[in-house]
């Protein structure tokens, strides 16, 4: 667990953060600039000192004002990937990578060669940071943090200074950290699409406070949090597992509580947890089960909530799960259609899903191997 309960005043800004999050998978800190995300991460890393409070990671108390504990950053074993890389300009890439790796330290659970291979750094080793592109710098920064063998990796907007192609270049590497190294990560971002792709747990921050903490699927589908999560294109995230492949038609089936989603073939073994993203505008509604229609994903649904109208459109929240395991789905329809269909909470309808986007979900939360300890 990551337990945080801190207060820090910086001029007129007051950070008051209290939350606990599982120390597995990726925990995203999301909020507008100025919400206090970086300050919070700096407090965790020990680079700034809280005015009061307590910080513990995996049972180890890193800061406690009451007990007089303030572990210096170099002994917290938290890796930190900064927005601007912060490579040491006077060292080669190789020396940057090995800076945190002192001789005889902790037996080397993460090997130099493995990290170089994982991040594709082999060709860069003898270069100097000044000669690297932005994306290369970030990869070296990630490798450098990994080789210090942290128990938790902090990433402060590691993609923010990169253009779209460079972002696309780095994202798979971050997914590898999550899936192959199973390293718990705190990921700061103000880009919801990155978070939906990567994170399991979402910590929403606003004006120095924690607005909400919970699974990404849950928070992104909550209407009351729309003002905070809103920049992300409205939609739902559904957890599912690969349940079947149809070779003839090149399709795959994903099972979720309450039904199966049919999607284009995904090259993943049966049972692989995945995360399906369905945009509100890709969902249509019908009051009777349609027949003779090309849509293959039609689900019986119940309207649970209707967002305030923003003429001409309105977002409708649906439940397509089971009574025991509700699954939220959003549909975007015109306000006129909503009136004519008589949509209201409790109304039974059918949801027609046009497109599904898939991300490979984290192993961290979905299938913890039996008997395996918390990695911290």
């Amino acid at each position: 667990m990551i337990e945080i309960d801190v207060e820090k005043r910086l001029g007129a800004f007051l950070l008051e953060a209290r939350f606990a999050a599982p120390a597995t998978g990726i925990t995203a800190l999301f909020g507008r600039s100025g919400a206090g995300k970086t300050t919070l991460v700096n407090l965790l890393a020990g680079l700034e000192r809280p005015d009061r409070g307590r910080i513990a990671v995996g049972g180890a108390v890193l800061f406690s004002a009451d007990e007089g504990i303030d572990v210096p950053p170099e002994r917290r074993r938290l890796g930190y990937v900064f927005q601007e890389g912060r490579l040491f300009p006077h060292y080669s890439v190789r020396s940057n990578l090995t800076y945190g790796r002192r001789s005889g330290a902790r037996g080397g659970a993460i090997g130099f060669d493995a990290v170089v291979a994982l991040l594709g750094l082999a060709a860069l080793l003898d270069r100097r940071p000044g000669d690297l592109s932005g994306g290369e710098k970030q990869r070296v920064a990630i490798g450098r943090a990994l080789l210090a063998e942290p128990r938790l990796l902090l990433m402060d907007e590691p993609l923010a200074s990169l253009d779209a192609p460079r972002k696309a270049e780095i994202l798979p590497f971050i997914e590898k950290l999550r899936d192959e190294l199973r390293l718990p990560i705190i990921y700061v971002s103000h880009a919801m699409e990155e978070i939906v792709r990567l994170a399991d747990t979402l910590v929403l921050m606003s004006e120095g406070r924690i607005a909400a903490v919970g699974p990404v699927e849950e928070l992104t589908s909550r209407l009351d949090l729309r003002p905070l999560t809103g920049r992300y294109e409205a939609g739902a995230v559904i957890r599912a597992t690969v349940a079947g492949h149809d070779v003839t038609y090149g399709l795959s089936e994903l099972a979720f509580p309450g039904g199966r989603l049919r999607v284009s073939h995904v090259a993943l073994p049966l049972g692989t947890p995945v995360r399906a993203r369905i945009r509100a505008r890709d969902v249509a509604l019908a009051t009777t089960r349609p027949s003779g229609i090309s849509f293959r994903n039609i689900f019986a649904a119940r309207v649970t909530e209707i967002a305030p109208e923003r003429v001409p459109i309105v977002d409708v929240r649906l439940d397509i799960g089971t009574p025991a395991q509700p699954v939220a789905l959003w549909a975007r329809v015109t306000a006129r259609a909503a009136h004519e269909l008589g949509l209201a909470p409790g109304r039974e309808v059918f949801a027609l899903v046009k497109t599904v986007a898939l991300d490979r979900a984290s192993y961290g939360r979905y299938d913890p191997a039996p008997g395996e300890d918390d990695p911290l």
Partner: protein
Amino acid sequence: MPALTPLEIEALRLSLRVGVVSVAASLPFGLAVAWLLARGQFPGKVVLDGLVHLPLVLPPVVVGYALLVLFGRHGPVGGWLYDTFGVTFAFNWKGAALAAAVMAFPLMVRAMRLSLELVDRRLEAAARTLGAGRLRVFLTITVPLMAPGILAGAILGFARSISEFGATITFVSNIPGETRTLPLALYALTQAPGGETAAWRLALLSVLLAMAALVASELLARRLDRRVRGVG
């Protein structure tokens, strides 16, 4: 220019020795004071700042006299040093090096302090998250990044040391082979009749020495600068 005369060689060797020793001995102190002034927060920082810069604005003869009073064989510091370690600065080349070091100190500290203020503290923070303690961060990140400033400080200090005159002559007098550095030898020649040619030769020697130091520092600084910027 014909070969150097024994007198010139003696003055040159003494000047070099005084310059090198004064820089080498005061460099660690200069670094410490630069660090305190750039990074430290303590009461009396303004006083320390003023004290360090005093030799820059005081007449050198005042500094020399203060050294004479403090570090003379019977002075409060000099007497203690002699009784405890058997070391004395009175009227020998070590005294000349001390006088040169005190006079050069503000220049050295200024250069190092400026470069320290330019070191990106975010890099130091990054090093600490990688498990490096304060001392390791200082030695592996801070010092290498401020290396151009340390070099500049050392060269400036060296140049100032070999040209020191007023404090030296007041503190340790003008003793051939012991405290008669290039400027003091030049001064002695100008006081005696018929010394014009010899005086010119010494003046030229001083210019050559200073130029060599500056050119060497420029070349070194370029290399260090490239290193610190992370290219080449």
